[in-house]
């Protein structure tokens, strides 16, 4: 029974990976996926931003909004800060669990 379930699971995963979109080519505009959308720039391109070389300033993007050169850091701590706060809570809870299991009984 376990073997049948595992084979069905593996076949489903393999089918999904073959039917996946092409590797290395994410959709470059929203209208490829949703033709009725009234905006064109995808979320990641909006976050990376656009630099106006002639005026020497940023039009939009993470560097203009958060001031950090590392876009991944600005996503982690600014755009998705609640996610990081929850992750810090998970870390704290796991360490509190380890201390609850092992910390007391050494005394």
């Amino acid at each position, binding site marked *: 029974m376990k073997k049948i379930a595992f084979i069905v699971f593996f076949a489903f995963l393999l089918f999904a990976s073959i039917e996946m979109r092409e590797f290395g080519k994410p959709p470059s505009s929203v209208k490829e996926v949703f033709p009725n959308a009234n905006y064109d720039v995808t979320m990641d391109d909006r976050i990376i931003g656009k*630099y106006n*070389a002639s005026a*020497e*300033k*940023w039009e939009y993007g993470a*560097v*203009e*909004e*958060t*001031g*950090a*050169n*590392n876009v*991944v*850091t*600005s996503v*982690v*701590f*600014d755009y998705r*800060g*609640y996610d*990081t*706060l929850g992750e*810090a809570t998970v*870390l*704290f809870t*796991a*360490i509190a669990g*380890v*201390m609850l299991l*092992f*910390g007391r009984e*050494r005394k």
Partner: protein
Amino acid sequence: MNGDEEKMTVIVQTIAALLFPITLIFSFYVIMHGHLTPGGGFQGGAIGASAIVLLIVAYGVRNIEKRMKEENLSIFESLGGLIFVVVSIFGIFLATAFLANFLVGKAIFGQIPAWGEAPLNSGGVLPILNIAVGMKVIGGLSAVVMLLALITKEGER
């Protein structure tokens, strides 16, 4: 049980004592430059925790536990979480919302870099949050490794 038998050889102890400050300084570098270069609080914290784990492996966990109590490491970790939450709550009063970046655009920390520039005093509250998360990860991972090593030694006795 004076802990001498769980030390490794003199060669390993000397190399660990030499490598410990270098690893710690590299960890601080990765944390402080988290908004400019690859890395950040989590990665730098993992490097710093690995420095403490190096000491634990080389000198034996009981000798390290006498100098560096795991309660103190836990307090260090909680302090990091507290800094994170307090800086986030400042965003409510000084700007619009929780976790708002209230320092961006200001003169001291909020400089917006142009193309090709990388000033250290940019990023607003992001370096402070990086330091907070780095403290959290250093304290947490070293406390967990120290507790697991201690409980394994207890089982042998």
